[in-house]
């Protein structure tokens, strides 16, 4: 054994603790246990340094150091200690770590101790021992259930802004640092034949049985040790201790390649079709995760069958002042003693209504802890060796300022008696952990013989339950149920499995006499310590008619927050049943929902944070644009160049104006790859497009492009673009960047569901082709230098709206379209994406003699506004073809999606909005986009609204701001001066109504 030197080298002790020297270091440390004594770990709690051991939890290490006070309660700031030894803990909530890694509301019972762990208590000021907010406790008579709702009623407007923030600040629990979490979180996906949830005796037997049969098995446990209660009890299996048997089984499972053992993994929810959510805490037990490694992983587990072996949770008994630090569950006290070699105090009393409490007394006595009394509510309680038994007695009160000092008993003969003790181990019986069986709305059923709810009704698909979770509380019964459960589950899958041989184990019957709360006493008996809910609060809820369990929960907050009432729900139900004169099963349980235990936001987000929040799409010219120092803008997931600043330009407008002017005066190039491209083929391709577009496509000649408008079913215009006909049975449709996926989806829906008889095949080719707009009077001259000479792209040979397959740069296949968004003589040229970067470089090089410029989305936007072309601002989900000035495009010679409903009267009003342009009367004024339009005179109100401005820009061509938008009867009001108003900011600009086509209204340039 290795000696470890602790406390500045003053105390040395044997690593296995056999000398008892541990006590010299940690006042409440016992001998034995499953902690690893070879390594002392240092940690801090509220800034004070303590020592613990590998295998400790923060709770066990604090108890070992004599720290019982671990937190303050939510509402009354009552001093609280640890109640349990597991994830059901309501009280001992702490803040772990600091800075970006700070994590509030963490249960000390599940925080695995590591060297350097930093923990702080929360919800107290200035310190845990002296908390000024404890003044709330003095006013507890006022702060009962429903207090807030009754008190902060008036004035109603105060609730959201004043009352609620103050109450939240006063209540609350932990705090966050507001710093970014520096750690990574992963998501992952697993598949198995059998998922075993829990690794106690039944879970291990199930995994062993299924593993030996060759099935794909996952066994998960929230604990860092497998074994469940086997690690917490003294009874053995065969001739081994429980933990030794666990080790043996674990070794066999580890050797089976078809079994995945997942400790530190909580199954948090049972979802549809056998899918389970699981959180694996990969690095919560070390100071910090290794670089690049995750702190936690959120797994989605696809199981063919699942066996819930989640064990059971002990329930307390409520009595006056039962919340003092030191009052704990008996099973937890036993677990601390047997597994962690810790006693909460050197003198402990036991309060029980069942035989299980007696085990705690016996185990503590065996460990040399003084048991000052065993108080059993049952008059016929079994005998106790080594401690005084009070049969038929109850604990009616407790004393002790920041921790338990004495308990007061009402004896069977009516006398009272004070018993000194620093801890009270309470057992009110055990509740099977049915939670996951209820995630698909299963309702548990009451079993009278064990006085507890067990799984029943509709369980999640293909889930079965074994062991204590099913009410089989003895070890022998749990082992058997696990083995048999695995055999049955695998048999469903056609896998023959033989139940593992059942080892010999204790098989004690459950002897419990239901006892929920001590009726004597006028003070507060706590049911839900996390939410400060007392027996009185439940009585008040009943009195005020909140009698359904769901109402009880919401009125009192019983069973809410991090522990979800795992130790408190049952008590509340039992009291409600008693008050209502009903049986407990008649009252029923509240609905359990995922997650089973708290889950960090970090693991929900996974890797989707910061710049990696979502994937990005890069254009073929991205690298080149970066080299030019382009500013990028997100357009959906695309990153598009917004403008290309040049040396000396200090304002984006300078760059944009230059790009517009140079394009209009000579030639500009823009990456338009982002526009959606959909390849449409088939005998019925043209007929299909006739259905998709409002205007007709059937007669579009091969080698031509046509502008098209798409309507929704309700007749509203939703996308525009072009369709190029490359063959009788082959079109390439382009969509707007934003709607590429939507249009494709709608077309696919139409193909499959609306017109299944049409011979049409669709596929996206958006990314396959790098496409560039080349626009401006010198566009053709520039292209002629790049397009291979055998292709005639003269105005005669390749007129406006022509398209064709060509080659460029000496043989690279390409597609050319003579279309124009800018209003200039313009082409769009496409090459396979891999050559896009090179083509752009070549175009820029060839364009040098013309002063060719690249232009970004801003210049693109300015030019399309100058041209009066509609874009997303105009196709805004409320506008029709008529509004857009394209009413006549909706062909009445054929049917199309949206045709019929576009004929609705309301969409064809005489005073319908029409797309027009606006110029400021005073050339220096802006034309603010979003402004509403009002007549030149008269009031400004919704009732007098004449329309609104959708897009606006500074036009470097016109030398003033311009806008386009929708105006009632706009096409008949050209020349009228009206007002563009912004009543929110009190702004108003006089604008003249003009044609939306500011530049080249006749379209001569683009045909030139």
């Amino acid at each position: 054994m290795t000696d470890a030197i602790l406390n500045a080298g003053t105390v040395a002790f044997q690593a296995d603790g056999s000398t008892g020297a541990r006590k010299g270091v940690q006042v409440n440390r016992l001998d034995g246990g499953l902690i690893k004594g070879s390594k002392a770990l240092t940690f801090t709690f509220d800034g004070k340094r303590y020592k613990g051991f590998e295998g400790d939890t923060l709770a066990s290490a604090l108890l070992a150091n004599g720290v019982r006070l671990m937190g303050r309660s939510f509402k009354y700031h009552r001093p609280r200690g640890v109640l349990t030894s597991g994830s059901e803990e309501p009280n001992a909530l702490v803040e772990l770590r600091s800075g970006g890694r700070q994590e509030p509301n963490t249960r000390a019972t599940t925080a695995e101790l590591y060297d350097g762990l930093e923990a702080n208590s929360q919800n107290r000021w200035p310190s845990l021992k002296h908390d000024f907010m404890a003044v709330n406790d003095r006013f507890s008579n006022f702060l009962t259930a429903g207090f807030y709702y009754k008190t902060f009623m008036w004035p109603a407007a105060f609730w959201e802004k004043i009352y609620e923030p103050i109450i939240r600040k006063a209540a609350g629990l932990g705090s966050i640092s507001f710093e970014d979490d520096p750690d990574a979180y992963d998501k992952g996906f697993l598949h198995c034949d059998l998922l075993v949830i829990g690794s106690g005796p039944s879970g291990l037997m199930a995994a062993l049985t299924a593993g030996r049969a060759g099935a794909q098995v996952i066994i998960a446990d929230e604990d860092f040790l497998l074994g469940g209660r086997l690690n917490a009890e003294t009874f053995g299996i065969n001739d081994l201790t429980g933990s030794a048997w666990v080790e043996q089984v674990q070794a066999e499972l580890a050797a089976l390649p078809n079994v995945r053992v997942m400790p530190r993994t909580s199954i948090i929810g049972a979802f549809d079709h056998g899918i389970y959510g699981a959180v694996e805490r990969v690095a919560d037990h070390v100071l910090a995760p290794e670089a690049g490694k995750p702190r936690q992983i959120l797994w989605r587990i696809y199981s063919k069958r699942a066996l819930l072996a989640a064990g059971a949770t002990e329930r307390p008994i409520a009595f006056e002042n039962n919340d003092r630090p030191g009052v704990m569950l008996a099973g937890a006290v036993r677990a601390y003693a047997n597994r962690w070699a810790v006693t909460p105090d050197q003198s402990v009393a036991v309060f029980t209504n069942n035989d299980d409490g007696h085990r705690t007394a016996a185990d503590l006595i065996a460990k040399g802890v003084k048991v000052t009394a065993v108080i059993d509510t049952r008059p016929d309680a079994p005998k106790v060796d080594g401690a005084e038994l009070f049969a038929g007695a109850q604990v009616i009160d407790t004393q002790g300022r920041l921790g338990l000092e004495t308990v007061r008993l009402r004896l069977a003969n009516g006398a009272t008696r004070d018993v000194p003790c620093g801890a009270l181990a309470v057992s009110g019986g055990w509740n099977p952990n049915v939670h996951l069986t209820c995630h698909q709305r299963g309702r548990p059923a009451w079993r009278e013989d064990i006085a507890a709810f067990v799984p029943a009704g509709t369980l999640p698909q293909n889930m079965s339950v074994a062991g204590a979770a099913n009410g089989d509380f003895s070890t022998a019964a749990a082992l058997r149920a696990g083995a048999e459960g695995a055999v049955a589950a695998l048999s469903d899958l056609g896998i023959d499995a033989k139940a593992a041989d059942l080892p010999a184990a204790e098989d004690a019957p459950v002897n419990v006499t239901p006892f929920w709360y001590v009726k004597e006493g006028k003070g507060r008996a706590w049911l839900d310590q996390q939410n400060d809910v007392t027996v009185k609060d439940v009585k008040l809820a009943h009195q005020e008619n909140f009698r359904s369990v769901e109402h009880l929960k919401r009125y009192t907050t019983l069973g809410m927050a991090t522990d979800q009432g795992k130790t408190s729900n049952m008590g509340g139900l039992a009291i409600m049943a008693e008050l209502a004169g009903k049986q407990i099963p008649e009252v029923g349980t509240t609905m359990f929902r995922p997650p089973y235990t708290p889950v960090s936001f970090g693991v929900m987000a996974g890797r989707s944070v910061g710049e990696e929040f979502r994937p990005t799409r890069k254009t073929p010219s991205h690298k080149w644009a970066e080299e030019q120092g382009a500013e990028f803008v997100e357009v959906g997931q695309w990153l598009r160049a917004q403008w290309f600043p040049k040396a000396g330009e200090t304002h984006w407008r300078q760059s944009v104006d230059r790009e517009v002017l140079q394009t209009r005066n000579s030639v500009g190039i823009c990456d338009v790859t982002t526009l959606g491209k959909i390849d449409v083929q088939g005998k019925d391709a043209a007929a299909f497009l006739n259905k998709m577009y409002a205007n007709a496509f059937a007669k579009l000649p091969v080698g031509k492009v046509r502008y098209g408008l798409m309507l929704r079913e309700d007749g509203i215009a939703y996308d525009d673009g072009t369709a190029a006909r490359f063959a009788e049975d082959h079109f390439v449709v382009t969509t707007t960047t934003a709607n590429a996926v939507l249009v494709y989806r709608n077309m696919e829906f139409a193909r499959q569901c609306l017109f299944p008889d049409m011979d049409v095949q669709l596929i996206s080719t958006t990314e396959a082709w790098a496409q560039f707009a080349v626009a401006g009077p010198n566009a053709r001259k520039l292209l002629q230098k790049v397009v291979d000479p055998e292709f005639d792209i003269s105005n005669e040979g390749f007129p406006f709206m022509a398209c064709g397959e060509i080659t460029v740069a000496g043989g690279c296949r390409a597609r050319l379209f003579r279309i124009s968004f800018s209003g200039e003589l313009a082409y769009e040229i496409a090459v396979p994406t891999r050559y896009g970067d090179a083509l752009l470089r070549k175009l820029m090089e060839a364009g040098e003699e013309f002063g060719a410029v690249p232009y970004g989305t801003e210049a693109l936007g300015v030019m399309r506004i100058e041209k009066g072309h509609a874009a997303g601002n105009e196709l805004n989900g409320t506008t029709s073809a008529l509004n857009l000035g394209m009413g006549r495009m909706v062909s009445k010679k054929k049917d199309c999606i949206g045709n019929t409903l576009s004929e609705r009267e309301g969409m064809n009003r005489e005073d319908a909005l029409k797309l027009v342009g606006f110029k400021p009367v005073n050339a220096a004024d802006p034309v603010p986009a979003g402004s509403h339009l009002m007549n030149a005179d008269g009031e400004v109100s919704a009732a007098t609204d004449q329309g609104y401005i959708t897009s606006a820009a500074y036009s470097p061509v016109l030398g003033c701001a311009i806008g386009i938008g929708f105006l009632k009867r706009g096409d008949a009001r050209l020349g009228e001066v009206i007002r563009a108003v912004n009543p929110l900011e009190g702004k108003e600009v006089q604008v003249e109504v003009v044609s939306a086509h500011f530049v080249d209204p006749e379209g001569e340039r683009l045909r030139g």
Partner: protein
Amino acid sequence: MGKFDNHGLKAISPLGGHEPRVDAFTGLLIREVTDRALASLAARQGQEEAVNSAAAAYLGGALPGPAGWTETGAFATWWMGPDLWMVSAPHDSHELLAGELKQAVGEAGSVVEQTDGWCRFDMEGARCSDVLERLCNADVRGGKAGSAVRTSMEHLGVFLLCHAPGQQYSIIGPRSSAGSLHHALMAAAKSVI
């Protein structure tokens, strides 16, 4: 570079390089693959059998069924949807794959060039399953050689082709998001290895 690549335009890879990128980890190699041409093949209505037999003659083997892929000589083909396949061949010898395939199937099928619509990363090595289970919901460990699964990685729709279970896979995703997909593969590899 391919035989049609002797024009003045130099290709770049989906990740933006002139050479495909390779990243090595212990037990894992992630390799950008740029030397395959792609073309989609859809059967026209009522021509399912005709397209199957014409394609089989051209490819040297039958078209694969749902969730499968096959390799026949230089060609690899995977199922993408009902009566829809993706055919792949070496870019050097088949840059004009779409045209060749169209000639083979004629009026029975619709063929579309898809070469540069996609990026492809091949993953090789003993740690494949460990890394892939952090990336997608495909049952990687239960998969077989010849399976082609449509799944998602990094919020992107991808095809996952299994060459050798646990040892060799191809991941084919949207080209414009190659950087994001590669980032996800690297993050998962670093997370696991």
